[in-house]
């Protein structure tokens, strides 16, 4: 009885501590939501204060983003959505093919290719950034969607993930499909790919989020404001003059809220997608 009571108190204590930690972790996001409802000029002058007059809360920042003032912002939004969705389609298509082949076939050079995948994973992109930037200039791709997407299309992390996933698929299915006269490509697209559903979902989220939040590379290759993605565009509003803070705050909220809503519905896939590296090799 006494140990039971003791455990109960420990349980309440730990749960309370976690509630506080969670509150601290979520505090910046809650602050942003509140900040977006406060007059932008106040934020500029006072910073974000714990004390504010609830009567002053207003939707004016959001009205501003939905007015002519916000046209540029929606242009960035469309760019981000287009780039992210095209990247998801392309990278899932190509990366799953490669990962599948590395897992399911025994062919000469397979191990070399897999080692190369792991090797690229360890080399920071920033080291290749300048030559790649030069290459984009030479190819005339500067300021295009393609330039933003190109380095992410055959993502080694996704190839790695698909390979690990495919290893667990039943190879007997391939044999029986062959006996039925299915081609190797038919086997992949009609039989095996449908079995890879959860891995497609996880990688769609990883690639989509990477692209949605990508910053340094788009900063290099995008030049005109009409081509900017959300992070690049928002960064241009982050000036010390604060003349666009209405857009900055409501725009930031509208950038992360859809992602958080998706997370609430597809938590499992977010978690497996964003913790790829932990997959055992």
């Amino acid at each position: 009885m006494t140990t039971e009571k003791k455990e109960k108190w420990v349980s309440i204590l730990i749960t309370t501590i976690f509630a506080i930690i969670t509150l601290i972790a979520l505090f910046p996001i809650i602050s942003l939501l509140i900040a977006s409802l406060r007059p932008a000029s106040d934020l500029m002058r006072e910073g974000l204060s714990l004390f504010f007059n609830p009567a002053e809360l207003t939707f004016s920042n959001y009205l501003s983003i939905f007015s002519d003032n916000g046209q540029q912002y929606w242009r960035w939004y469309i760019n981000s959505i287009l780039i992210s969705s095209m990247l998801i389609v392309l990278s899932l298509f190509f990366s799953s093919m490669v990962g599948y082949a590395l897992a399911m076939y025994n062919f000469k050079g397979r191990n070399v290719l897999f080692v190369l995948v792991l090797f690229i994973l360890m080399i920071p992109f920033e080291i290749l950034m300048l030559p790649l930037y030069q290459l984009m200039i030479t190819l005339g791709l500067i300021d295009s969607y393609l330039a933003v997407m190109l380095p992410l299309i055959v993502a080694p992390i996704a190839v790695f993930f698909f390979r690990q996933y495919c290893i667990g698929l039943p190879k007997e299915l391939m044999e029986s499909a062959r006996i039925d006269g299915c081609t190797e490509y038919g086997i992949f697209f009609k039989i095996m790919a449908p079995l890879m559903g959860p891995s497609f979902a996880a990688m769609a989220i990883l690639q989509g989020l990477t692209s949605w939040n990508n910053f340094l590379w788009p900063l290099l290759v995008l030049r005109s404001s009409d081509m900017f993605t959300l992070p690049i565009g928002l960064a241009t509003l982050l000036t010390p003059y604060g003349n666009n803070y209405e857009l900055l705050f409501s725009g930031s909220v509208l950038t992360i809220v859809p992602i958080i809503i998706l997370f609430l519905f597809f938590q499992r896939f977010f978690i497996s997608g964003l913790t790829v590296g932990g997959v055992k090799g």
Partner: protein
Amino acid sequence: MEPSTSTDTQRVRNKRPSKLTAFLTSRKIAPYVFVTPFVISFLLLFLYPMIQAFVMSFQQVLPGQTTFIGFDNYERLLNPTFYRALLNTSVYVLFTVLILVAAPVVLAVFLNSKLLKFKNFFRASLFVPALTSVIVAGVIFRMMFGESDSAVANEVLGFFGISPIDWRYGSVSGMFLMVLLASWRWMGVNILYFLAGLQNVSDELYEAADIDGANPIQKFFYVTLPSLKPVVIFVSTISIINGFRMFEESFVFWQANSPGNIGLTVVGYIYQEGISQNDMGFGAAIGVVLMLIIFIVSIIQLKFVGAFKED
């Protein structure tokens, strides 16, 4: 005899329209077709830029003309600005690795405990910061750590009787902001790595420890932590690599130029020299040195945590 053979070949012909298709769909060739996208991407977007980065680091790259200048770019690296960038990055790596290993381990152990209620809610909530882009996170942090007395951070300090701080203008507080921003964003992801690792710790080890009369703290240090070693190695390795790649956490606070370079990182220096100053050869040299540093530090780290030891 003869007619039957001809119908056989005919049937085969009907099935396989041409030799080329037969070849391309054969079991031997198909895997190579599947991996072609990777091979092309590897050659064009990895191997070529990799070689080019080395070559460029020995060149002066001007629009329309490049000249070989030997080790000049590397010699130019011996300057106070680069040292400052290297120092900032190293301090940042050190703190982010320590925080992003130690804190998630402890939080994961509690999240795994039967005594904690609402586990799923806490786990999901702690993960949410990972969904924000650094830019949006930076917008919030800049407001929270504003210079005025009425910004949240200074209000909290005021509550404890500490005078307000100009967060973005001091080298210690500037570093604090960058480390805090990174820790906030990555905490939830690392917790998940450790939680996954904890599922592999066998209950028998804890039962044995119970029989030996170990208290919870002893169990943590003698059972939990050693069992989590592979995850510790993994998380510290990615934290080191990500730390040396840091750029955005600095950019959101100061754009490309921070007062007295308090926020300058190695990648920030590549950006400044290679892109802003258009001195690509010099920028490439910084990149090559950065790669060597990451390589050396990773090896030292793996030795330090004993990744090469079999046990």
